């Protein structure tokens, strides 16, 4: 048995295990899918960087055996933007949570999509602020109980696929942590896209979201995902908003092409400056 090695282990910093995630949490499942996608898509691991923000999902950067950056709360996308622009050869993945990306980092999310920066964003959406103890997020569904809305959430939530499509993303998909094969496939597809890709993964937080809302444990949530998810590729993103116990529309919603930021910059500079435009040299300054 000793020669049996988990195929995803090569992507993990095993010297950092055990991880901090709770039993039943879905983040580890998404990392497994991410690793499967790396195997399937044969991405060059040396030129792959993972950038995370703050929160439970923000810890992903610390566990993957890749060049990895655990940045400040909400700012994974602008950090990743600088990294990508300085070294366009890098494949840059932003791996963070719903609160980090869409609340404190919401402005950067829409502007990166607008610019069509070549980033692959994996947004693990557990519908709550988990690291800090279960506060309301911009994604928390109506009527849910949280520690900061103890009588129920009444403010409308973000429909993230709709938001990023409107802002300009070229690839938008949503799965749950029940859809492990589909998720891995979507991540592989995103690696083939040039431009701003956004994959939302609905994921349980049994410790805070499910428990407070009497939605059962991790297994109950898998059953819910299985029963209530409906795959609708190409669904209009305006129709994929989430409720607490209703249907979850999953699938690939957007797959389109438009020039990414660096292609547009090169085109504009060449048009305006002609031969004087100095194509960005290798920036490594040592």
């Amino acid at each position: 048995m000793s020669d049996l090695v988990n195929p995803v282990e090569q992507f993990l910093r095993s010297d950092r295990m055990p991880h901090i995630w709770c039993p039943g949490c879905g983040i580890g499942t998404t990392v497994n899918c991410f690793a499967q996608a790396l195997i399937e898509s044969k991405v060059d691991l040396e030129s792959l960087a993972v950038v995370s923000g703050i929160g439970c999902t923000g810890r992903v950067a610390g566990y993957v055996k890749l060049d990895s950056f655990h940045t400040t709360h909400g700012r994974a996308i602008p950090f990743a933007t600088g990294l990508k622009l300085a070294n366009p050869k890098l494949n840059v993945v932003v791996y963070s949570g719903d609160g980090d990306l869409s609340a404190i980092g919401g402005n950067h999310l829409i502007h990166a999509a607008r610019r069509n920066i070549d980033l692959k964003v994996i947004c693990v959406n557990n519908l709550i602020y988990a690291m800090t103890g279960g506060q309301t997020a911009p994604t928390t569904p109506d009527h849910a109980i949280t520690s900061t809305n103890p009588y129920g959430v009444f403010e409308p939530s973000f429909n993230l696929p709709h938001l990023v499509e409107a802002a300009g993303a070229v690839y938008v998909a949503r799965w749950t942590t029940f859809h492990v094969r589909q998720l891995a496939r979507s991540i592989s597809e995103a690696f083939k896209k040039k431009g701003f890709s956004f994959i939302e993964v609905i994921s349980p937080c049994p410790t805070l979201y499910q428990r407070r809302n009497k939605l059962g444990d991790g297994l109950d949530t898998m059953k819910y995902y299985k029963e209530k998810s409906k795959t609708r590729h190409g669904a209009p993103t305006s129709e994929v908003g989430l409720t607490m116990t209703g249907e979850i529309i999953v699938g690939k919603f957007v797959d389109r092409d438009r020039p990414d930021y660096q292609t547009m910059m090169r085109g504009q500079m060449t048009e305006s400056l002609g031969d004087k435009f100095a194509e960005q040299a290798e920036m490594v300054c040592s």
Partner: protein
Amino acid sequence: MKADPRGVLTGTHFMDGDHACCEGALAAGARFAAGYPITPSTEVVERFASRIPTVGGTFIQMEDELAASITLQGAVWGGAKAFTVTSGPGFSLMMEHIGYAAMTETPCVFVDVQRGGPSTGLPTLPAQADMMQARWGSHGDYEIIALCPNSPQECFDLTIKAFNLAEEFRVPVMFMMDEVVGHMTEKVVIPPADQIEVVPRKHTHKSVSEYLPYGTNGDMVPEIAHAGEGYKFHVTGLTHDERGYPNMTPQVQDKLVRRLQNKIRSAADRIALFEEEQTEGADVVVVSYGITSRVAQRAIGLARERGLRIGKLRLITAWPFPEKKIAELAACVKAFVVPELNLGQMVREVERAAAGKARTFAVSHAGGGVHKPEEILKVIVEASR
């Protein structure tokens, strides 16, 4: 190593401080800037946006200063020398990322062209009231370096110095201009590239298996690797060990935070630059920096005409504060006079370093203009008694 000639605009120019700062950054090897428009600093990045496509590099205008101040750090870890430019309100928004740069030891430069505050304050008028913010603005214990130019020529020369110090110590360097210096136009001489010394990144030569991202050998400054080179390293703003892994114990915190402080403090004498004139035998020394040093020069001249023995100490490095120099002078002089465009910031440092051995007189100004030389003269006369 010598500057890359592609970024060096050799010649004699008539140029304002903001533009000279941009030319200094290009000469120092900066090939990436992220910015957000804010008066009176925007001219620095406007010039960079115009110059960089023909030099080879990138300027990106971000959605806010929060973004600009971390985008540049992503670029540094991608291999670039990078900076951002702002003024008071934007500088306030950048504080968290100054802390991130200090904690992750990301070499970079933050330019602050100071205007009157607090809040929106005086967008087009000068102040020197961000000096303590530059030192203490982010939470937690850390050290930074801050330089204060007093002319367009120094905006060029010291911007190169700022990048060099950032690379040598792997620390964010604050370049503390003020509105007058930024908008003042004077002669700026840019030497040939082969006469400009540039400090290269302290890049590791170790093998992947030997490399410890935050391991140090005596000099307290770790060697850096860039993304995409195969090192598969981790960077975090959490308290971390030599591997760069989070380790939130008091022991690791103590070791890390003390090293971040000591790598600068132990080199403070070397980093502390100042201009000293006739301090020997002086009764009073006027301590000033930035645009105020040029007004103070006139006041010192007027005082000397009256037969007073007045020395001058112009701070070029504000942080780490040259406390040793002040302590030496305090043993010999009656008093220090400290004019500045704020209600008393660096004067507190002078007073602390003088440790009661000499008196300290502030000449405060709320900003929006500069002192009248006579206002400084009056305090010099009083201090000389």
